[in-house]
């Protein structure tokens, strides 16, 4: 990395640090990622994660031996919640990456070429936007069966239009910038102008939106799990954990509160981080 880039990064971090909420977001997200990476290997009851049950220890209240208590199958809620972080985070990231990739492609083509192509692509985008994501996901699940891959695909399918609209607007604005006109005056072709000049300069808003969307993507994966068309047990996933726990409320509150808090923490953390990134990458948007 060149000295200039390094200094820029440090400068950015300086702006980031000035807001303690961004720092909280960063800490939460870093902790989540760490837990997702190493957590499943360290949990006290890996056999429960794999689907094993223990009917003699059903509905134990949280204690020193089972921090988050146990559920209706006698499984350790702490182990399940920790293991669930990997599935939820991975699903959230996949949704956002797929949606951002496809949305950027559609938006960049529409914004750069304009005219009838723009018109056609954007009408299609609007159409996708009007379909409620949950219904679309249910349809996909019905057609292709439940499972993590299909859930991610279904959500990404309803998620990309947001990116397409964002990227289209950014590309249209950048297209008129002097340095892009300068590249055209030099005789640069479309792939070079889009790839070298426009896209690197609109990466910031895309990254910001990806971070802000991460929390909601995790939430949507969880909702699909909750309504029972997402990830199937025994794979531990926060939404489906919450869904089964719902039947035992309010008496056995701990089976719901811990996966629920994990979802809350993830949404909260990614949103704060996204806001912080906005300050760093796009100082103009700050007030």
């Amino acid at each position: 990395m060149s000295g200039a880039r390094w200094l820029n990064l440090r400068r950015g971090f300086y702006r980031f640090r000035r807001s303690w909420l961004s720092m909280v977001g960063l800490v939460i997200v870093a902790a989540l990622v760490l837990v997702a990476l190493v957590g499943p290997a360290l949990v006290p009851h890996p056999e429960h994660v794999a689907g094993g049950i223990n009917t003699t220890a059903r509905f134990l209240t949280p204690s020193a031996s089972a921090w988050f208590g146990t559920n209706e199958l006698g499984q350790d809620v702490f182990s399940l919640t920790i293991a669930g972080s990997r599935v939820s985070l991975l699903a959230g990231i996949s949704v956002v990456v797929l949606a951002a990739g496809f949305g950027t492609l559609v938006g960049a083509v529409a914004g750069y070429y304009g005219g009838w192509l723009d018109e056609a692509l954007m009408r299609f985008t609007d159409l996708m936007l009007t379909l409620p994501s949950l219904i679309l996901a249910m349809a996909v699940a019905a057609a292709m069966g439940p499972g993590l891959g299909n859930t991610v695909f279904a959500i990404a399918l309803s998620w990309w239009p947001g990116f397409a609209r964002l990227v289209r607007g950014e590309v249209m604005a950048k297209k008129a910038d002097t340095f892009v006109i300068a590249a055209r005056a030099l005789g640069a072709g479309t792939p070079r102008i889009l790839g070298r000049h426009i896209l690197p300069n609109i990466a910031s808003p895309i990254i910001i939106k990806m971070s802000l969307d991460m929390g909601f993507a995790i939430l949507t994966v969880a909702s699909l799990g909750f309504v029972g068309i997402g990830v199937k047990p025994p794979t531990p996933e926060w939404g489906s954990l919450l869904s089964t726990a719902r039947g035992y409320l309010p008496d056995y509150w701990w089976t719901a509160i811990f996966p629920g808090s994990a979802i809350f923490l993830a949404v909260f953390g990614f949103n704060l981080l996204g806001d912080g990134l906005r300050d760093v990458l796009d100082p103009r948007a700050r007030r």
Partner: protein
Amino acid sequence: MALLEIDNLHLAMRSFDGEAQVLNGISLSVDKGQVWGLVGETGCGKSVTGLSVARLLASPPARYFGGAIRFDGQDLMQADEAAMRRLRGRRIGMIFQDPTTNLNPVFRIGEQMVDVALHAGATDPAILGLPQGAPRRARLAAARQLAIRMLDRVGIPKAVDRVDDYPHQFSGGMRQRVLIAMALIGKPDLLIADEPTTALDVSVQAQILQLLYDLVGEEGLAVLLITHNLGVVAQICSHVAVMYAGNIVESGDVRSVFKQPGHPYTRALLAAVPTVQSVRGALQDLPGAVPDLIHPPPGCRFAPRCALATPACAQALPAPVPVGPLHSVSCLAVGAAA
């Protein structure tokens, strides 16, 4: 006593890289009827000087560490925000350089001017020509009349018809006139105009300069005109202060500064302007670059770029040396000769 006195003002600005010594002890005194030009290269501290007089710099990042600003005898460094609000828009009018603080595109010209007029009327009812405690209706009507009068005053044709237009319906020059009109609503004693003509065509610029000239003549207004255009200064200003890296290096009446520039920086600046005599390709330029204000050079900040510099220049900041009745220069070389 002068209307505005800036006395040895020191200002630092915090940023990631450190604290920049942005104003390094500047002194300036502006009287009624005078038009002071404040010139210098970009980043030398012209705008922060103007903003300091109106106390509009947020702190942090700004930190004042010495000096005083007196307006009509009142020490503005000690004034609280309420006192400053009474002065701004009333006795001190401002035109900003930052284009985003200019006219709001979603409100009509008249609405924006009425707001200013009501604010000015709140501290001095005489501005609206109404007694204290007049009903809101009467104040609104009076403010609108005042807005129309001011638009007329700055030369907007058919002001009555244009007062309800939106900013985008005005040309650049007309918008600049509206900003001047807004700054003048409170009948200020001092107008701070930061680059009021920089974005305008020469023909429109000439109209704005004529307007300023008339206002000074008729109302005894004092003006602090911030610009980097030496042509504009030569035309309209009675006095000029030349800034370099947070210092005023030379100041005085405009004719003697332009005709007998004493400071090597002033000379270099004037020589860089193309004139009838300039020879193509042999325009005198100034080697080097403006110093980093976080680690400014010791002593005279211009010394590293100065052809006349001696080791003594790095010892201490040279004090202003009078070279004429109104004209002073902060340079050791000049001091030695005098």
